[in-house]
């Protein structure tokens, strides 16, 4: 059974308070911060761009003056556009709702991220177990001044802890915070 207050020999030395809350730190009561709003805007623009470009290509092939398409493809054209449009629309709607759900929190001893639209999960990575930290930036991220923070533990690549869409400054700060943490820097 879960004990309400597991006692450990180190309890006196241990500190991991989220300044404002009750004695024991609780995941359920984390004060989560949202990621940058730009992240959603970028995703929405990517979704619309990709959809539009695909539709444009299909339309160009359909209506181009240079060569004639086979009869079947001409017949299929509206369906193809319909499918691309629907999938693109779903992709767009997903990001409209899901991206605002991505939130994170940093405590003295761990970082947490909450994400997910239908299946919402909160994952918590103790800094003690961090093996290395990456700040990743693709071309679009660089243009928008955003960055993705990746935290690796011995849990394997499948379980890389990742916070996307952080303003670069924040990402660097968190990275530094983790690196300066006595448990990580001690090694």
């Amino acid at each position, binding site marked *: 059974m879960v004990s309400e207050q597991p006692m450990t020999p*180190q309890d006196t030395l241990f500190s991991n308070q989220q300044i404002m809350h009750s004695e024991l730190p609780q*995941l359920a009561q984390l004060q989560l911060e949202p990621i940058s709003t730009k992240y959603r805007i970028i995703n929405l623009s990517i979704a619309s761009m990709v959809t539009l470009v695909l539709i444009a290509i299909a339309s160009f092939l359909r209506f181009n003056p240079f060569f004639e398409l086979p009869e079947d493809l001409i017949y299929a054209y509206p369906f193809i556009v319909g499918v691309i449009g629907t999938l693109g629309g779903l992709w767009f709607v997903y990001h409209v709702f899901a991206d605002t759900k991505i939130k994170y929190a940093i405590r003295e*001893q761990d970082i947490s991220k909450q994400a997910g639209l*239908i299946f919402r999960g909160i994952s918590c990575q*103790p800094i003690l177990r961090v093996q290395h930290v990456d700040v990743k930036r693709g071309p679009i991220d660089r243009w928008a001044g955003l960055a993705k923070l990746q935290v690796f533990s*011995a*849990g394997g690549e499948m379980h890389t802890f990742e916070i996307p869409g952080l303003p670069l400054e924040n990402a660097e700060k968190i990275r530094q915070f983790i690196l300066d943490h006595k448990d990580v820097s001690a090694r």
Partner: protein
Amino acid sequence: MTDQVSASESAVNNIQVDTGDDWQRLSPIAIVYFTIRNILTTFQGLIYVIPALAVTFNVFDNLNSPEAYIGISAIILLTAGSGIVSFIMYKFRVHNQHVEIHSGVFQRRYTNLPLWRIQNVKIELPFYYRPFGYALVVLDTAGSGKEEAKIVAVPLAYAHALRKRVLIEKAQQNESVTANALTSPDGDKTLITGEQDEEKEEILNTRSVGDIIIHGITNNRVWIILGAAAPFYDDVFGFVSEWLAEKGLQLNQLVDEQAIAWWQFSLYAFVVLMMVMAALALLSVGGALFTFYGYTLSRADDRYIRRSGLLNKLEVSMRASRIQMITAKQDWLDKILKRVNLYFEQNTTASQQVQELMSPNKLIVPSVTENEAIELSQEVMPGCNLHAQTYQTISKRFILHWLSVAWTVPFLLAITVGVVSEHMDVVVLAFSIFSGVALLLTLRWWRWGIAFDRRYIYVRRGRVGVDYLCFEPYKVQQVMVKQSVFMKRRKLATLKVVLASGAVTVPFLPESYVYRLADSILIEVESTRRSWM
């Protein structure tokens, strides 16, 4: 076994591990190793080409032609020559606490491994090494298989000395680390002082041939043999059908002739099936004997050492502190025979497929009795009790969830198709599959549970068989709590705990329980600050 061990141990102490400035050559027996390895890699590359070649040239007809002889002898000469070249191009030295290796013919490779970074030392004895007393030493770093270094042929005593040296080196490294740490678990201290003097090996478990045969029957180890026999499949099938024909049994006739009554036919089918099953079981027993013959599990200080193998003797050692999780697996057949497969799992950062049984990341104790399983698990994790826990079971909604999310739509589709097309067999089939799935899900729900006794976390799971998992919460790498919208409404949540050996998930637990457990695990990790390694 013990005599052997102690004899080699005494020899170990007199051997100089450091080979000095000069580069060392391997013993010439390595040529055999390199040749075999090169042949295998060549064949692995050619395996897709062979069927094509066989079809186009009709190999067997041309086998007697001079071209074929020239071709075959050229291949043999080339591979043998490549073995010698590989041997000449390979040199190593152990110097200044580093293992350095130059290897490769076209792609030269230089490996430099500090002794204290070596995670695992595996000593392999291929059968052609054994009469001459040589060994293959595999040095494993940080889990990644690509960084594995092999010292291909050294005298066995040297291999043992090298392994001992690596362990001492690591212990000293640990000592300097733990000296800074807040607390040092007393286990670590004794190991550091104890290691230099004498290494006493205590044998914890041995498996008799009978045990291994049981293991072969209860576990499918067919692939060990099938994999090795793959090139001969065609011949075997040809032989079997000829043999059957001789006995007057013609499969084609059986199917064609209307004269045979259906029950006769099904009797034949049943007999054939039984024969196949028996053959497979025999193969599986053979495979099990091949890998597990002479199995011993022993402990030397804080290490567990496993030795086994019929032709190729294999030795795997694992530090006790590295064990992340104990898994006791019991399939339905194991349950009947009251046997358990026990696994000690280490970190599996090496994501590529290592053969499970050989893997240094999983130490298997095959088909032990239930009592032995309890003893061994308590040996590794003192005070753990897999069976005596009151497990927090998961919610029945688990069954409902999977039935509705994954199975209802295909089921309804099949029913509709069946009814519309008036094929009642489709409907019946759909019903039976659906109820079968429901039954399995119910079994799964019934088994799945979690318990926490302040020291260890236990998970029970399975469908027909049962697996028990046990791990220490302070070794956890990451914790996740997941909830769908519907689960939130019902105050249920899924807990996923990531360990270095992999993730453990328990779904549909009460929300409050999950959060309390997650918080407890985090506190355990963050406050004790004990190393997971």
